[in-house]
């Protein structure tokens, strides 16, 4: 059994209204040190298998196909065997 994490964020250059709104809210609460903020999605998966390379390539496929919207989102993943 392997554990995997997938982080999905909007691509650079795509406007992030959620991030912008949360950033403003933090600033209005006095957290002036926050320079920028992007909102994304985080997923935890449990995968059957031991071959890290193969799992990564399958997870990449899943991310491309379903988990992320490659038109507007980037993803990053971590697999722990």
């Amino acid at each position, binding site marked *: 059994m392997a554990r995997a994490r997938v982080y999905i964020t909007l691509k650079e250059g*795509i406007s992030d*209204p959620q991030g912008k709104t949360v950033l403003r809210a933090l600033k209005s609460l006095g957290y002036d040190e926050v320079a920028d903020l992007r909102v994304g999605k985080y997923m935890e998966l449990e995968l059957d298998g031991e071959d890290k390379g193969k799992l990564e390539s399958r997870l990449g496929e899943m991310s491309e196909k379903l988990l992320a919207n490659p038109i507007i989102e980037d993803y990053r993943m971590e697999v722990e065997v």
Partner: protein
Amino acid sequence: MPELFEELGLKRDEYDSICEILGREPNKVELGMYSVMWSEHCSYKSSKEQLRKLPTEGPRILMGPGENAGVVDIGDGFAVVFKLESHNHPSAVEPFQGAATGVGGIVRDIFTMGARPIASLDPLRFGSLESPRTRYLFDGVVAGIASYGNCLGIPTVAGDLYFEEAYEENPLINVMCLGIMPRERLILGRASEPGSIGVLIGSSTGRDGIGGVSVLASQEFDETSAAKRPSVQVGDPFTEKLEIEACLEMLDKGLLLGLQDLGGAGLTCATCETAERGGCGMDVDVGKVPLREPGMEPIEIMMSESQERMWALTSPDNLDEVLGICEKWGLDATPLATVTEGDRLRLFLDGVVIADVPASSLAQGPEYHRPAEKPAYIDKVQSADPGALPAPDDLGAALMDLLGSPNICSRRWVWEQYDHMVRLNTVLLPGGDAGVLRVMGSSKGIALSCDCNGRFCYLDPNLGTQIAVAESGRNVACTGATPVALTNCLNFGNPEKPTIFWQFVQSVEGLAEACRQLDTPVVGGNVSFYNESFGEAIYPTPVIGMLGILEDVRARVGSAFSREGDHVVLLGDTAAEFGGSEYLKVLHGKVEGKPPALDWEAEKALQKCLVRAAGAGALASAHDLSEGGLAVALAECCVQGGTGAHLELPGTLPAPAALFSESQSRAVVSVPAQRLADLEDIAAELDVPLHILGTTGGTSLEIKGMLELGVDEMSEVYDTSLEKLIAGATR
């Protein structure tokens, strides 16, 4: 720079004209500006010549085409602003965000005129629901419209929806918005006072949709579309909601001289169009535009189509108050332009002129006379005789098939995802012939309907377009409203193909004739060309958005049979007309024949009769006859009201025609017994054929000698089919 102008979508002769206008070669920034403004999307260069055929004037019309949206005087000191637009190609790439930003764009067109947006409508066309891709697109588009419109607090009150193979790769996502205002709040997108200041309000500018107009909207759609994906944008309805409130507050305080939204061609379009309309020039400091990304070049800044941005013109005296209101609403606002005498649009960066062109030359653009040639398919499809096909053995089963078919079944699954009640004006809920809104502060009502039967337009673009106008007029008339003006979104294929352009010319001529007949001028609209996938054009689809006015909103009429013992009456005559019908498609799998005939005298008389009878309080319900004919209309009246009817059809027409023909100029109404004589008088006076079919009541729809179906069993099929089809169930 030959490579560059071609890459930007300009033709050689267009490039030569630019050189002639400027008396020199344009620099890169100027070339970019011309390329977006002279794109089909912005310049209407292929359609302009044809669109002049449309009637655009009338006593109620305060503003016809040419501004951001048309304006109609509805009396009692109120004016309404409305427009229909397309967001087809962005939605085909990313359905949720494409549809969402489409709503954002049309809503900006409305409040930029000073009106508060109070209603949206969404006419949608997709491929067959059997395709998983269609289901993905459909689900995403509906969710996108819902997410944006609901957040703005603008009710989506009506729409229409068709599934046809012709839209498989190129769905049509049209969006309509209507706003209302006190007449005196009307403001134009004009920069007419030298010395006034241009202020950019709202979101920062990124590399969104750069060249979106020229690349996405003005070229055919093919495999390389995937590579154009960075043009897709993420909508921000929250910012737009704040812009609505801030702009309306500025207008109420009389602080603005002109207002324009940023849409296709972004800042280039907003600056040159406001300058051109106002007969002035403008100096723009590009370096002051707030940017979302580092390292953007002036050409990118000027062409960016970042959403949720507004362009306001104000006097220097009012500038501080304008900026104060923006700050109150949490909006960024940057003064960055000065209106000048003359005609030059000049861009500055760090004090240096980086572009200097006549504003009007950008805004007016070229105009083409395109060749038109009748496509070969027309004679072939029209020569088919659908009447010769065998009649179904079981008429009840045929009706059930139609009630469950994707183009007829209930759209509840769609409109329950839209907030259709916010703002407390929706006095007729979706599901009927037209959305009806009350007008707060007046006794009047507004009825809205969107219509276009693409099959009819495919079989005969001219007649099909006239039928679309007739049907949208009939839909609002069924609620008791008089149709007064319309907007349109003309969705066609590649106008450079003579056969496609022929469809367009025919359609515009049909539209012009219909508008003259019904006395409903065109107050604005949109042309969407290049709706093709892999070389196949969509059905010509001139979607009509009709505005109707009810003098007394209390006289509105719904479409459901909701009482027992009323007379059921068919207004209008039926002939055996199956060309392009839903019956022909669902039962025989064919799209052929001639569309039903349209007699404008009969149509106008019927609409007058409906309005007059509603005004006299004689109608308990009224429902237009369209797809699926009389049988489907009767079934819908029963299902929506939960009441049956016992009927007998008059005349000698064979059953399939009597039940399923799509003859025009017909409506089915229910009338309380004591008011039947009133309806008969009105119909006789207007020469409208009237047939008493029977009475409402009971738990089944019985048409003597033809069929009998339980209201419950019809409801089950009618109400649940769409949801099942979306889930991927096969019929």
